[in-house]
């Protein structure tokens, strides 16, 4: 399941909803990305996520389908926010549910690595130095490449 939304999310409630009442689940891994009050050595005051409606949903669905083809997942969830956020707010949530822990861990790391390099989101950072578009990181490309 994927969702693209402006509103914050409740990670605990999302995890609970995926596993409630199930007795076939052995492992649940979650990842939350949170806005940090720092960008490029400057104090960040706000972060605005622009995205490409239509393509965003398509890419997230494609990435989720790829994870489910690679690992035996019983459920999965990607929630990604767009719009303006302040430090401490959650940006993204990934949850993977499996009978076994290694599948849940690997699939969650994969979803984040692919999402970082494939999903059409762009961050505009407001800092004491002004507003500037965040540059893509070579380390994110390297992280995504290990799943090829």
């Amino acid at each position: 399941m994927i969702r693209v939304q402006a509103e914050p999310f409740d990670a605990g409630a999302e995890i609970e909803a995926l596993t409630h009442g199930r007795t076939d689940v052995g492992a649940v891994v979650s990842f939350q990305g949170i806005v940090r009050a720092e960008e490029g050595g400057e104090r960040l005051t706000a972060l605005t996520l622009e995205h490409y409606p239509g393509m965003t949903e398509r890419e997230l669905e494609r990435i989720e389908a790829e994870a489910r083809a690679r690992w035996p997942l019983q459920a999965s969830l990607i929630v990604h926010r767009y719009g303006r956020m302040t430090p401490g707010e959650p940006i993204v949530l990934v949850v993977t549910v499996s009978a076994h822990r290694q599948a849940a861990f690997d699939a969650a790391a994969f979803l984040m690595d692919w999402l970082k390099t494939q999903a059409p989101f762009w961050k505009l950072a407001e800092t004491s130095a002004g507003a500037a578009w965040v540059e893509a990181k070579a380390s994110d490309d390297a992280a995504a490449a290990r799943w090829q």
Partner: protein
Amino acid sequence: MVRIRYFAWLRHKTGIGSEELALPDGVRTARQLGDWLAARSPGFHEAWTSTGVVRMAVNHEHVEDDVELGPDDEVAFFPPVTGG
């Protein structure tokens, strides 16, 4: 008509989020369309050359430079993504 969309600093520098136009003569690929746009005005030229790599999507899918365009495609130009 091809629908063209611009995101992040390409949107800021071109000053527009989207536009529609007929594929110009001689433009067959996404890369050729980008080159045509970059030669269109000083503002577009600067958008293409001043900041970094420009990526492309056609009909909501990441594509390579040499993908051929259809007459009603939606083509998007944007910097490398930074979500997550």
